[in-house]
């Protein structure tokens, strides 16, 4: 409920559009039942059952292909597993209502086996791998005749009745298909509006930034694939009962997999309702073509699919939902009001005193091939301290950062972090670091481009607030603190570079880190923003957060840092009080060359 209320506050104009959208969906869904009942024709029933099945499959596909951005062209694997599990069990006398869960369980196992090794593959490679897996499944289904009937296929025993999902009339079948569609839509909607959905989209947009925000990227993808596979298998079981006959060529078909994905793309990939729209629009056209023209028009429906697909990617890359959004989201642009001044705490007059140690870095070594990028780097960080890291370009500062946040494994040496409960731990992965309260930004900003500013910050806020309402609240608060308040509903991609840098900091701040690693957050922003950023960092520090900041803006380094480390050629060449360090001979030499050391 909190979500709806916060939506109301967000945009008065957006609400009516949203309500309108929900009404449209409700009408559409009601029509899926009402139209065939009203017409009463067998063929119309068949078309609407097919719409429900394809819409359900496409909605399930969209959880992986849309939300998670893993373009699977092998989703028939799960559909086929569900179909075969259902039919095999029915022929053993077990009801498909149980069979569908057995199929779903097998499909989940298959999904994990198929996708785990493939997650490092992107885009076309993931698609190719899923096609290859599909081919393997098809060939195996043809091979193991005792189980699957091989190329001759399997007939189901015709037991009529609800417990067997087989009926003389079409109406009960339509009800089941419709029910499955509702389940798929409900699951897809639930995922999209909860933390998992945000995490999936964030992982799709920027995997490394998602990791830094504490997202278990492999875990959330496996969850998405498992859910999607289970749903697809359940639909597959029902479809097999409806068809009463299955064979490997039709159950594990590449063309079928492509169609499932295609409906989602045409309706609007990654949106909750897009796949439904795509199926509602396309299935009737092609089924009519098939039914009316019969065997003369073999290939016609496929031809229409192919042409529509090309036209959609060329002219409507965001699908039908993209068009709908263009008309409804006019009011959601940034209002362009002045950025609120940052409510920074006044600089404390008393010199800041650093507390106990919170991070220990010992003897870090890193080689990239023959290049020794990090050579025996070690230091400690205290609670509530700002540690400035400076050094010429290419000195290896960012490499050290990557080792302090789990993105790179040092060849030697270790990084230990004091946990909130007071024990020293050695985290290994970005997720471990995030769990211990280490947050980082990236030198080259990594926004989740397709998400709004608010959603970007929410991905960080979820780290402490698993519920959407709380996370949204925390994200807004952070956004206002960072002067991003006016842009909450703007797409991250529309921000200026200064805005993106602030967004980068806002996302990590929303994680409420105990240790903050800032990588050149002031590079390339104007003087006013630098001063604001300095005040902001001091106010963050005063809440007890420890900060390590790589920075080139010397004015900021000097006024901020309690201590400064100078890195050159992968080694620490000086450290200590900022004023002393800049007078150090080695430092001047590293920056300006030997002849300047006595200047």
């Amino acid at each position, binding site marked *: 409920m909190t979500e709806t209320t916060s939506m109301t506050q967000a945009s008065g104009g957006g609400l009516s559009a949203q309500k309108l959208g929900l009404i449209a969906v409700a009408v559409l869904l009601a029509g899926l039942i009402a139209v065939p009942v009203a017409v009463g024709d067998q063929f119309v029933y068949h078309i609407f059952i097919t719409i429900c099945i394809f819409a359900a499959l496409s909605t399930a596909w969209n959880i992986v292909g849309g939300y998670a*951005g893993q*373009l699977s*062209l092998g989703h028939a694997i799960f559909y086929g597993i569900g179909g075969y599990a259902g039919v095999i069990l029915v022929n053993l006398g077990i009801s498909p209502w149980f069979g569908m869960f057995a199929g779903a369980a097998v499909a989940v196992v298959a999904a994990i086996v198929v996708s785990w*090794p*493939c997650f*490092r*593959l*992107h*885009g*076309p*490679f993931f*698609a*190719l*791998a899923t*096609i*290859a*897996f599909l*081919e*393997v499944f098809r*060939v*195996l289904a*043809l*091979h193991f005749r005792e189980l699957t009937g091989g190329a001759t296929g399997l007939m189901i025993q015709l037991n009529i009745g609800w417990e067997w999902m087989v009926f003389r009339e079409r109406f009960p079948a339509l009800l089941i298909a419709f029910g499955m569609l509702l389940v798929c839509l409900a699951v897809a909607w639930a995922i999209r509006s909860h933390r998992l959905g945000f995490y999936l989209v964030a992982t799709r947009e920027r995997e490394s930034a998602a990791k830094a925000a504490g997202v278990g990227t492999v875990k959330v993808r496996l969850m998405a694939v498992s859910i999607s596979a289970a749903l697809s298998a359940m639909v597959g079981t029902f479809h097999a009962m409806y068809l009463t006959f299955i064979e490997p060529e039709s159950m594990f078909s*590449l*063309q079928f997999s*492509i169609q499932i*994905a*295609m409906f989602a*793309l045409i309706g609007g*990939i990654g949106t909750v309702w897009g796949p439904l729209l795509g199926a509602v629009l396309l299935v009737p056209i092609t089924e009519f073509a098939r039914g009316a023209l019969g065997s003369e*028009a*073999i*290939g*016609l*429906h*496929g*031809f229409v*699919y*192919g*042409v*529509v*697909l*090309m036209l*959609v*990617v*060329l002219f409507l*890359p965001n699908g039908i939902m993209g068009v709908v959004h263009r008309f409804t989201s006019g009011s959601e642009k940034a209002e362009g009001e002045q950025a609120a001044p940052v409510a920074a705490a006044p600089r404390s007059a008393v010199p800041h005193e650093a507390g106990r140690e919170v991070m220990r870095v010992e003897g870090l070594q890193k080689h990239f091939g023959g290049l020794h990028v990090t050579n025996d780097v070690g230091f400690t960080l205290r609670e509530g301290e700002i540690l400035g890291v400076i050094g010429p370009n290419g000195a290896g500062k960012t490499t050290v950062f990557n080792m302090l946040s789990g993105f790179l494994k040092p060849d030697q040496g270790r990084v230990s972090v004091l946990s909130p409960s007071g024990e020293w731990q050695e985290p290994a992965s970005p997720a471990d670091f995030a769990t211990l309260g280490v947050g980082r930004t990236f030198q080259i900003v990594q926004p989740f*481009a397709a998400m709004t500013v608010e959603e970007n910050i929410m991905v960080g806020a979820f780290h402490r607030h698993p519920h959407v309402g709380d996370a949204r609240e925390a994200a807004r608060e952070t956004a206002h603190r960072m002067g991003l308040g006016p842009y909450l509903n703007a797409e991250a991609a529309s921000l200026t570079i200064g805005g993106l840098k602030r967004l980068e900091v806002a996302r990590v701040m929303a994680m409420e880190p105990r240790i903050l690693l800032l990588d050149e957050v002031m590079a390339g922003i104007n003087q006013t923003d630098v001063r604001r950023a300095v005040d902001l960092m001091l106010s963050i520090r005063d809440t007890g957060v420890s900060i390590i900041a790589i920075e080139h803006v010397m004015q900021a380094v000097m006024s901020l840092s309690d201590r400064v480390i100078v890195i050159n050629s992968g080694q620490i060449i000086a450290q200590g009080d900022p004023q002393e360090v800049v007078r150090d001979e080695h430092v001047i030499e590293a920056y300006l060359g030997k002849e300047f050391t006595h200047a």
Partner: protein
Amino acid sequence: MDTFLQIVANGLMLGGLFAIVAVGLTLIFGIVKVINFAHGEFLMVGMYLTFLLSTGMDVHPYLTAAAVAPALFVLGALTQRLLIQPLMSARDEHVQIFATVGLSTALMNLALLVFGADIANTPAHGVRSQVMLGEVRILTGQLWVFGAAILLVIGLQLFMKKTRTGRAIRATAQNRAAARLMGINDKFIYVLTFGMGAACVGLGSSLIAPLYPTSPTIGTYFVLIAFVCVVLGGLGSIPGAFFGALVIGLVDALSGFYIGSDLREAVVFTIFLLILILKPSGLFGTRMNLSHVSP
């Protein structure tokens, strides 16, 4: 021993056939950085053209290559110009995949509409007669395909290394922005490359048509195998695709005999998956700038 030699010979000949399909695919992939899912349908179109020309005019199918290869060049160039080029800057690579998948679906079903599901047999004109090489029997057509594949690979390599256009193509593949700064018309290069890739498969289709019956779905089988060869040989590498094709031909023939002919494909695709997952740069992988398509 004779059987074994015969199987190896069959495998190598099959490899030559795969190679002539895979070379065009890897060329397009290496330069334009687009995986052309419609490549198999290009082959299918070429085979139907060969069938129509050679039966209609009663000429040797090999001679039709003089018309089929240019026709396919136009088809490929148009694909790049009208379908891929508008999508080159798309933020999301989904759209490029779907674009070629859509083209593939449309072409395959168009063939179904026009020719029906029946197969078309291109007249053999003697290329299905056998010759003996020592103890081993081979179809003359297979030898021609194998020879053509070798010549095609060598010819393309020479073109890429020695000519001005070839260098421009390689430069564009390495770094598109830098190539543009050097005055290379990158859009033209992409259209040219896509056309060349399609022309390669056009040449192949005239050679393959007398050996294999033509059907609307023939492309699917060949394109999947061609993907395997291309990944095995290192994406974008022309000699790699050739050797990858030979390996896959051998695997196909040997596993068909020793494991079971119905499981050949499972073996081939399992190898493909292992390569993709364990060594995505391929067995003969070359270092290329694939930054926007690989992990």
